[in-house]
């Protein structure tokens, strides 16, 4: 998969329109078949999902497995597989689009109740509000498909392993016998 690197600035209009949204929601610019995050220098072209749907899924992915040191593009990369699957599978595509529509409808209700105004999932600025919605739908096929795909799709990206202190393959370096297998001295 390819997450394209960009070199664009954020204009003032984009910024103003973004107030009250999630950080990701504020940073994303949605175009025809594309999703771009200029401030983070990446974007993606979509084959099947609506860009707005993908944007919401990326936020949802972060809300399911929130790692504040892991950049959005890694969650985007994990979600990209759903777009690929959706391109050849109408049932999956409908399940994802319907799932996100349901999420946005629930978010709109919460927004009205809490006085944030109506809007979608990306307009709920507090993680706790979004997570409460996810708890309500966690037994759904949509949520389980999202969570299940993330377990491998997110954590098996070698690029994020150093953020967790995991060093990965070691045999080509001779293992750890000379590289700290017993180096702690605090116990």
């Amino acid at each position: 998969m390819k997450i394209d690197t960009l070199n664009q600035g954020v204009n003032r209009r984009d910024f103003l329109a973004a107030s009250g949204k999630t950080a990701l929601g504020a940073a994303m610019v949605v175009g025809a078949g594309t999703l771009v995050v200029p401030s983070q220098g990446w974007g993606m072209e979509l084959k099947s999902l609506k860009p707005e749907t993908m944007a919401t899924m990326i936020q949802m992915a972060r809300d399911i497995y929130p790692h504040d040191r892991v950049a959005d593009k890694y969650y985007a990369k994990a979600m990209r597989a759903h777009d690929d699957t959706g391109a050849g599978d109408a049932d999956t595509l409908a399940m994802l689009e319907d799932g996100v529509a349901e999420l946005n409808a629930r978010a709109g209700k919460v927004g009205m109740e809490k006085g944030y105004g109506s809007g979608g999932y990306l307009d709920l600025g507090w993680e706790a509000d979004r997570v409460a919605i996810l708890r309500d739908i966690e037994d759904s096929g949509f949520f389980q498909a999202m969570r299940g795909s993330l377990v491998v799709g997110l954590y098996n990206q070698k690029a994020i392993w150093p953020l967790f202190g995991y060093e990965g393959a070691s045999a080509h370096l001779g293992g750890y016998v000379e590289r700290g297998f017993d180096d702690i001295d605090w116990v």
Partner: protein
Amino acid sequence: MAAPYDLNDDSVVVIIGSGAGGGTLGNELAQKGIDTVILEAGGRHEAEEFINDEWASFGQLAWLDKRTTSGDWRVAKDFSGLPAWIVKAVGGSTTHWAGASLRFQEHEWKAKTNYGDVEGASLLDWPIDGEEMAPYYAKAEDKMGVTNTNGIPPLPGNNNYKVFEAGAKKLGYERVHTGNMAINSQDRDGRTSCQQSGFCFQGCKFSAKWSTLYTEIPKGEATGKLEVRANAHVLQIQHDDSGKVTGVLYADKDGNQHVQKARVVAVAGNSIESPRLLLNSETSMFKDGLANSSGMVGKNYMRHMTASVYAVFDKPVNFYRGTTMAGIVQDESRHDPSRGFVGGYEMETLALGLPFMAAFLNPGGWGREFTSALDMYDHMAGMWIVGEDMPQESNAITLSDAKDQYGLPAPNVHFSDHANDVAMRNHAWRQGTAIYDAVGATATYPTPPYPSTHNLGTNRMSADAKDGVVNKWGQTHDIANLFVSDGSQFTTGAAENPTLTIVSLAIRQADYIAEQMSQKNI
């Protein structure tokens, strides 16, 4: 005759499976000059082809054929198509195992006698005991190069062990050490010492950990009396009108089917596939499957009482570095009903890489509670808990309505915990947590069982033919020239990791098969 053998050669012993049981039996028979063919369902991946990457290795080695699950165990919900984490490759699960090599304790051979009647449990005494097994254990420990036996020094403790040992000793535990491990602590038997790579479960690229793949199998092949046929997936064991087995039907890597004739057949496909093969071999003469007059084929499935404890500290541990399981506390392995359960358990160090930690720490878990644990990955220590579980007739391998790639009924794995298993697990979670709390853990995580690695008991050994499938030699009660050579023979599970006992039984069984062949009894 010499290897390779003709399909129509009916003088050979055919062994189904090349792991701890099958690989060892094959070499032992070949060393005695007996013509032997091992049929292995998986491919042959030599040590240098192993992959230091958890998911990629899983794709290379794991048995991923169709399986279904039922029962109230959490694995049936979290991993419904993956009841067990075992291997389909030459070397079987000895490529993947951690290397822990413990003898049974004396009382464990006679669980029924020593534990008494436990409601809902189908306990039985083994028809053999520790004294009878001692010489075979000694041979196996020497063969496998087990540390702390035969003058072999212990492995050095890694970071994960240091934390574990300090906590255990503060708690007052006394039997704390780096284990009896079939991992070279010094160069031995043509293999190097442990390089602390941290990928024991993915196949040891240094061959420091004993596996039949690069010990028993090449030694057997060197005699000219052992042929190992990879990608040969056995579908059915065949018999004649007298009820003797005559050969096996298998599919090669292209799906073409062949019959390999045999004088003796030994089944060693692990405790899910072995009973499934016997059940799938039903005929008009053996309507309930081969060797199943007792109705016990597939019953009494055991998987050990297991659990894990992971703990987070305010300082780094880097527990993924070094030997995956070289650390043990044995004080709780005794039988002491005052703790509220019969039998005992071992606590053993364990580390997973980040990808598998994400999959197994709390399957189905999500949100900040989950991710705050993973965020502290390099500050984590971990242990696995393994104890004796109660055999129950209702825990069983049966034929599923689902079909495998050959159109044969897939196995269904049904398991529910016994109350004794639950009581033992809760005790073990408390003690494991206490070990880490004793050295200043800031968070602890009682982690549920993973897909089974210790699959046992589904063709169990019994003195009386009505209670089990095989006799004290692993010979089926019903058919003289049909043997079972893997962990499915286990009458009860004991608290210990089973491989050393499987290997010891295979060495002993080879002596018996050779004697019976020379006396023309089989």
